[in-house]
Structure formats: structure tokens, C-alpha cells
């Protein structure tokens, strides 16, 4: 008898090994065994089989079903090369830490050669997202429910609508109820009863969502019922009008955000070129140094990516500022009053700095991660949302602007800088060390360029060529806004950004840039001093 029991257990173990490849699971409950089979089926050959396995897992109602599905779309589900059983894997140093998908217990480690990812495609990813969302509809967590309804809005099939119809009454959050009503309304638009369709149209009034617009448009042209067509037509033109208005707002926002980047890049130049009159072709490279400082700071604090950027702001200012002072002391001070030589020397310097970065950091772009609080967007409505990283950059640019204004208007340093730039001899006569002020001013300009680098590291590539893309734009903004005037840089940068963004949809990005350049050339012909001519100069010359 005893032998018999052992025999059967052995058979069971063998079966389990065959099915899921893990002998330890022989003692699992029936539900677990079935679930384990379904999970194992994810490691199938074809995408169709994988999709079916995912569906089976979702239907199983197993407590770990959503964990496994989430891992599947997050690409954290692997299978062992030997044996083929499916495991959850978290990357560690030199390999992976494995977890059993059914029990959630640790299952040892593996090197990168021992496990392979369970590959899925976009279609499965979308289906699994829907599956997770349907499970999430009943979650006690409001954010999970909100995301779930949002996800299902993309694909409101009748079964989903049915489920939501039973949930909508008990939903405590008003905004989630609203989204639920959208799903219901969309599904009722497909009803056979014209009266029902009219009611659904009423329910959807006010929504600007893509899906609503498309379905309403469809009804406006194809609906068999005259009244439905009319009402849908009216609603459609209403939606289109509103969307156009919001589209305009979006363009202004894009323009402001592009302008804020331009002016941030130009502030440093406004100081070195505008106030000191130095044509610094290495300005772009100072921006690049700021961006690389951000990268290095991030390397130094790998566990605090979210806050490293806050540390990077002062660090980039100081590093780029130090480079600036060194450049001024080492090169530029011997060349004051010789603009052509300054131009050539700083151009050479820019090439040297680029190659220096290539040698130290490699020619490859470096990855600067965005902190979590900077990615994503604020959705104002379905037709208009504000991307967060752009919002932060606009805010940062304004902050830098007001800080610079304060420095120039309220501090002794600012007073001395203005004094030296307006009348060097007189400033020296009253005891200002003009050469010290020169290097401090240049350092300040360079430091502000470094700040621009921190902002740019969040928007574009951190690589040796980062600065080159901004040097011409910076000069344009400074010259357009009026040399030596921070307000000019602010207004110049923002207006060029908005102008560019309004031209772009009509002309394409390439021509828009050309047109802006032509515009500035014509403008400078008419008004060589720029938007805001410097006022102090006249006083000093008079």
C-alpha cells in the first residue's frame, strides 16, 4: 500500500515536471496546478497560442493572475533555456533574480545566458492591457479604476459595457463615473433603436475624445435615421470647433515651450555677448558641459534619480561657471577689443571641448533619465494636454530669468557689472577691479549656460554635439531681442518659438526654420538694435 502511494506521488511529480518543469510544485492545490499549466503555456511557439494562454490566465481568477499578466506586458516574464519553465525575473548585477510565478516564492538566480524573455507583440500587449483593465474595474484603488476605464475607452466592446453598466451606480468618484458614462454612451451609439442612439448622443455631449468624434462623424454621414444624422452633424461641428480652439492653445503652448528652451540657451550668451561684447563661439559647449554634469551627478547618485536633477542644477552652474572663468582667464582676456580673433579662438576652443568630451565620455550619447515626476502630461481635456517636462522647463526658464534680473538689479556684483559694461574707465576710477568683474561676469554667463544644459538634458540628447545645435539659435535670439537686454532675450526667445510653431504645421520644420531666419534678417535690416535697444550706452557716451 505504502509503495502504491509513493508510486502515485511519483507519477504526479513526473506529470507536473512535464507540464511545468518544477518538481517542487507537486504538492500544490488543484487551482495552483491548473494555473501553473496556464502560465507554462505562455512559453508557446506562436503568438496566437500565447494570447490564448493570457486569456486563460485572466479567466482563471487565480490571485496571482494579474501579477503574472502585468509581468508579461512589462517584459519581466522569462523562461529557462533548459527545461523551458516560465519564471518572473528581475535583473540584478550580472544576471537575474527569479521568482516562481505561481507561488511568488524566490526561485534562485540565473545568468543572462540561462533565461530568455517570453516574447509578445503589440497585439497581445494590447489585449493583456484590456484584460488587466477589466479586472481593475472592481479594484478598491481609485487610480487603478480610473486607468482601467481609460484603457477600456479605446476598445469598448459590449461585454465591457455590460460590466460597466453594473458598476457605474456604485462608483464614488465623479470623474471615473464620467469616463464610464462615455464607455456606455459609445457602446449605445451602436444600438439598433434610433431613440437609443439619440439618447447616447445626448449623453456624449461635451466630450472631445477622439473616439466620440469619430463615431459621431460616422453617424452624421451614415446613419439611416434623419434626426440622428442631424443631431450628430450638429454635435460634430461643435466638437470640431472646440477642438480647433484647443488646437490653437496647444500651438501656443508648444511655441512657448520651444521659446523657453531658446531663451534659456540664450541667457548665458546675453550676458557674455550682450553685456561684455565677447563673441563666444564655445557657448554651446558650455551648455554641453552643463548637460554632462547632469549625467555625472546622476551616475554619482544612482539610487536617487528623482532628485539628482535638483543637485545637478547648482553643480552644473558651478562646473560650467568654472570652465567659463578658466576660458576668460586663459584666452579671452588677451583678446578684448579684437572680435575676429576672439571668434576664431573660441571656435577652436569649442572644437577642443567637444573632442575632450569624446575622449572622456566616448562619442556615444549618454543617457540621462528623466525623474518620474517630470514625465507624462496633465490632461486638460481630450484635445489638449500639457507635457510635464515642457512645463517644468518653462517654469525653470522663468526662474532663471528672474534670478538674473535680481542679480543685475539688486546685488553689488550686478551693479559693478553694469558699471564696467557702461563705462570701464569710470568704473575703474571709482575702485572697481574691472578684470575681476570681467571674469566673474563671464563665469556667470557660462554658469547660466550650464543651467540650460541641465534643462536640455531632459529634452534632447546628451552628446558631444549637443551645443552646436544651439549656438546659432542663441545668437539669433540675443540679436533679435536686443543686445545687452535680458527682457529682450525673454521676449525674443518666446516670440521666435511661437512664430516657429505657428509656421511649422503649414510649411514643415525645415522651411519654418528658414522662414524664421529670413524674418530675422529682414528685421535686423529695419531695426539693427533689436527689439529692445540698450538704453544705458547712450548715457555713457553722452
Amino acid at each position, binding site marked *: 500500500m505504502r509503495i502504491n502511494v509513493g508510486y502515485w506521488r511519483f507519477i504526479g511529480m513526473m506529470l507536473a515536471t512535464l507540464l511545468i518543469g518544477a518538481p517542487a510544485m507537486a504538492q500544490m492545490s488543484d487551482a495552483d496546478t491548473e494555473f501553473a499549466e496556464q502560465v507554462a503555456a505562455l512559453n508557446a511557439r506562436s503568438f496566437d497560442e500565447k494570447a490564448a494562454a493570457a486569456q486563460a490566465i485572466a479567466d482563471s481568477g487565480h490571485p496571482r493572475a494579474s501579477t503574472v499578466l502585468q509581468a508579461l506586458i512589462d517584459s519581466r516574464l522569462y523562461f529557462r533555456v533548459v527545461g523551458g519553465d516560465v519564471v518572473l525575473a528581475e535583473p540584478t548585477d550580472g544576471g537575474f533574480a527569479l521568482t516562481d510565478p505561481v507561488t511568488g516564492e524566490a526561485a534562485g538566480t540565473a545568468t543572462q545566458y540561462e533565461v530568455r*524573455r517570453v516574447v509578445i507583440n503589440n497585439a497581445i500587449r494590447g489585449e493583456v492591457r484590456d484584460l488587466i483593465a477589466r479586472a481593475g474595474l472592481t479594484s478598491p484603488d481609485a487610480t487603478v479604476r480610473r486607468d482601467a476605464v481609460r484603457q477600456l475607452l479605446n476598445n469598448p466592446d459590449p461585454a465591457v459595457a455590460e460590466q460597466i453598466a453594473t458598476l457605474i451606480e456604485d462608483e464614488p468618484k465623479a470623474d471615473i463615473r464620467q469616463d464610464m458614462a462615455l464607455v456606455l454612451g459609445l457602446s449605445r451609439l451602436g444600438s439598433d433603436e434610433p431613440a437609443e442612439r439619440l439618447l447616447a448622443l445626448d449623453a456624449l455631449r461635451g466630450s472631445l475624445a*477622439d473616439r466620440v468624434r469619430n463615431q459621431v462623424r460616422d453617424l452624421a454621414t451614415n446613419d439611416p435615421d434623419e434626426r440622428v444624422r442631424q443631431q450628430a452633424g450638429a454635435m460634430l461641428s461643435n466638437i470640431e470647433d472646440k477642438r480647433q480652439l484647443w488646437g490653437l492653445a496647444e500651438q501656443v503652448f508648444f511655441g512657448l515651450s520651444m521659446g523657453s528652451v531658446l531663451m534659456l540657451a540664450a541667457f548665458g550668451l546675453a550676458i557674455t555677448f550682450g553685456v561684455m561684447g565677447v563673441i563666444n563661439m564655445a557657448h554651446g559647449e558650455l551648455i554641453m558641459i552643463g548637460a554632462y554634469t547632469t549625467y555625472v551627478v546622476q551616475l554619482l547618485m544612482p539610487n536617487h534619480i528623482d532628485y539628482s536633477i535638483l543637485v545637478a542644477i547648482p553643480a552644473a552652474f558651478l562646473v560650467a561657471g568654472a570652465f567659463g572663468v578658466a576660458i576668460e582667464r586663459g584666452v579671452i582676456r588677451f583678446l578684448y577689443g579684437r572680435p575676429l580673433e576672439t571668434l576664431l579662438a573660441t571656435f577652436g576652443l569649442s572644437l577642443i571641448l567637444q573632442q575632450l568630451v*569624446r575622449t572622456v565620455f566616448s562619442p556615444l550619447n*549618454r*543617457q540621462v533619465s528623466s525623474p518620474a515626476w517630470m514625465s507624462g502630461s496633465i490632461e486638460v481635456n481630450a484635445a489638449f494636454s500639457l507635457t510635464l517636462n515642457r512645463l517644468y522647463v518653462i517654469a525653470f526658464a522663468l526662474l532663471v530669468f528672474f534670478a538674473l534680473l535680481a542679480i543685475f538689479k539688486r546685488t553689488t556684483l550686478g551693479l559693478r557689472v553694469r558699471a564696467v559694461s557702461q563705462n570701464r574707465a569710470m568704473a575703474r576710477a571709482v575702485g572697481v577691479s574691472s578684470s575681476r568683474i570681467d571674469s566673474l561676469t563671464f563665469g556667470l554667463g557660462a554658469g547660466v549656460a550650464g543651467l540650460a544644459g541641465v534643462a536640455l538634458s531632459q529634452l534632447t540628447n546628451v552628446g558631444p554635439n549637443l551645443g552646436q545645435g544651439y549656438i546659432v539659435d542663441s545668437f539669433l535670439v540675443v540679436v533679435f531681442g536686443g543686445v545687452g537686454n535680458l527682457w529682450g532675450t525673454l521676449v525674443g526667445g518666446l516670440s521666435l518659438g511661437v512664430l516657429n510653431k505657428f509656421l511649422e504645421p503649414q510649411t*514643415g520644420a525645415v522651411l519654418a526654420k528658414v522662414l524664421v531666419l529670413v524674418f530675422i534678417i529682414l528685421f535686423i535690416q529695419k531695426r539693427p538694435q533689436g527689439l529692445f535697444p540698450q538704453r544705458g550706452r547712450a548715457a555713457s557716451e553722452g
Partner: protein
Amino acid sequence: MIKLNRIRRQVAHAAAAGALAMAGFSGQVAAQEDPIKVGVLHSLSGTMAISETALKETIEMLVEQQNEAGGLLGRELEPVVVDPASDWPRFAEQARQLLEDEEVDVVFGTWTSVSRKSVLPVFEELNGLLFYPVQYEGEESSENVFYLGAAPNQQAIPAVDYLMNEVGVERWALLGTDYVYPRTTNKILEQYLKDAGVADEDIMINYTPFGHSDWQSIVSDVRDFGSQGKKTAVVSTINGDANVPFYTELGNQGVTASDIPVVAFSVGEQELAGIDTEPLVGHLAAWNYFMSVPTQENLEFIQSWHEFKGDTDAVTNDPMEAHYIGFNMWVEAVRRAGTTDVDAVKESIVGVSVPNLTGGYATMMPNHHATKPVMIGEIQPDGQFAVVWETAGEVPGDAWSDYLPESADIIASWRKPLLCGNYNVETGECSGQNYGD
């Protein structure tokens, strides 16, 4: 020593008599004669250094391996590296220097189409050999150039087929950087899509300058274009740096691969190394090679690359495989010809077949293009691609696209009796049209 040399010479004579003996014998003899010079023409500074540096190192590694295996024809290989610094005219100067002053036997190099076109006349004038490793727009076939990267029918067309048939895409946004490769490729694709019955208003074409960083309006346009109820995809020939802000903007505006997949022809493992790939998961790329392909050849290649670089995080990519194939083809052709003489190699290389890294074979066609498998990969969170689709076998490269009216009748064959890179089958003569304009 003298005696040894004599013995060697005798053996060499014997070996020359039988070509088969040659291969086994070459392992013992090395470095007595002048080395075979292998020119490397890749930018190590400037904008293109980001992509080209790895290719220079690939050739150095392959040369090193070949020397360890006993060299070639009993001679050592010696790489001659120059740096054209991403400066197109300088490519031509350096090519001339390699061929005239250094007298190299073969050159591996160039990346952008404009750099290839700038060196082309030099290679034809001085009768050199150039192996070009990058996917390109086609519409070219030179007697002196071997195109190991994908022609449009080995990358763009299969990718569009995949999206149309497997994903069900009906609207197409063709986004590209403003230069010859994207413009020609998009011209071919536009014609191809229209032939497949796609309406004009379902195709959107947009070009941006090199290094474009402000993608807000374009991504917003694409989102709007894709929100009209038909499944939409972006076909991206955006090159280089500009991809990072493009994908970041897609992520920030909430466009996921499930809504609007982006299939890219210029984004590989190397490019993704500088990006936070988390928001890109599911976007696609079409190549003839992915680092993630689990064949034995590929694992060995990756391992030796890691050893060569001294960095276990170093990535491999498609143009590196193209160099691997090109280098091995050239080695095999030299072996068959028994000499590094350019004309002899040109003749012997057509038909040469060597293993690629993905479990198949690459064969050099008479039009100087190779056969390659086409794979579609989806971006994974770790910056690698997972292959979701591939062609049943290798696709032969088509130098002259059948989807452009001006090149539909043109074929290339450098085999006798045709010996022409732009033969017009209608008029029956060498049309002379070349260097794609």
C-alpha cells in the same frame, strides 16, 4: 632561417598548385611577406563618430581574429585606419590617400549615403574595393562597391508588408530626416502603398532637419492623423540623434506602441543605448540582424566583441554584422582568387556564400548586393529587440527599385557579358544613370 624559408617556398609552390591545400596550409605561414593592407574609412570624430566608431573596431577585431587563424594567403593582415571626421569631402581625400599612398587591398567604410557618394568616383578612378555596411536607399550599383547593408526591398518594403498584413495598418505617416536616404525610401514606399490601394489622404509625409529636437507639433500632428479611426503606423527614416527626443515626445504625449506603432529603419541597439527605453517598448525596427537572435554564431560573435571591447555591456548591431559578412566574403573571394588583386577579387566574389550571424547564409549577387533575411523586432525595456516576424528565407537585394518609374526597367549585373550597373532592359543598353538623382 634561410633553409626554413626555402622549405616554405617549396611548400608554397605545392600549395599553389592545389587550391585546396591552400586553406589548411595558411595557418603555418605568416608575416614573412608584406602584410595585406585593409583600409578602414570610418569617422572617429564629429557627428557620425557615434555610429562609425564601433564599425572601425569591428574590422580591427575581425582582422585580429583572421591573423590569429593564420592570416590570409600566408600573409598577415594589417588594418590601416584613417579618420575622415564626419566631413564628406574629407572622405574622398582619405579614400584617395588609402588607395594611392597606402596602397590598401580593400577598404571597409563610410556610413551616410553622402559620404559613400563622395568616395565613389575615387574608388572607380583608382579601381579600389569598398565594402559598404549600412542600409541605404538603393538606386546605385558600382563595379567597385559591395553593398552589404539592406536595399529598400530588404528592409522598408517587408516592414510595410508586415504592418499592412499582420497589424492591419491603413494610415501611414512617413517621417524622415531631410536628406537623400529618407527621401528616396519614402518615394519608393509612397508608390508601393499607392499600388497597394492606400488613398492619398491616408499617407502623411514629413521631413525634419538633422538633429531636430523639438518634436511637439509633429507628434501632435501624428496623434491627430492617427485618431481618425483607422489603424495608423509611423514609418520612420529619422536618422541619428533626432530619434531620442522624438521617442521621448511620443512617450510624453501618451502615444504608445499599441495606439500608433513606429517602425524605424535607422534605430538599432547602438542608438537605443543612449535612450531610456521604458516608454518605447513595443515600437518596431526592421533590420537584417538583431543582437538578441539566439544562434550559436551570434553568441560567439557577441562574446568575442565583449572580449575585444573589454566591456560586457557593449552592444552589437546590424551594420556590424554587415561588416562581419563583408569581411568574410572578401576573405573567401581572395582565397578563391589566390590573390588580393582587385579585378580578380571582383570576379571571384560574385556567388561567394558565407554564414551570417542569424543562422542563414549571405550570398553576393551579381549586382553587388547580398542576400539577407528581414526581421521585425519590437523594442524591449532593456534596449534589445525581440523578433516578432521574419521573412521565410533570405531576400536578394534589389539595386534598382521596381516601385520607382525611373528605375523600374533598370537592372545591375557585374557578371559577363552584361558588366553594367545600370542596364536598361527596355532599351537594351547601359543607361549610364547612376549615383541616384
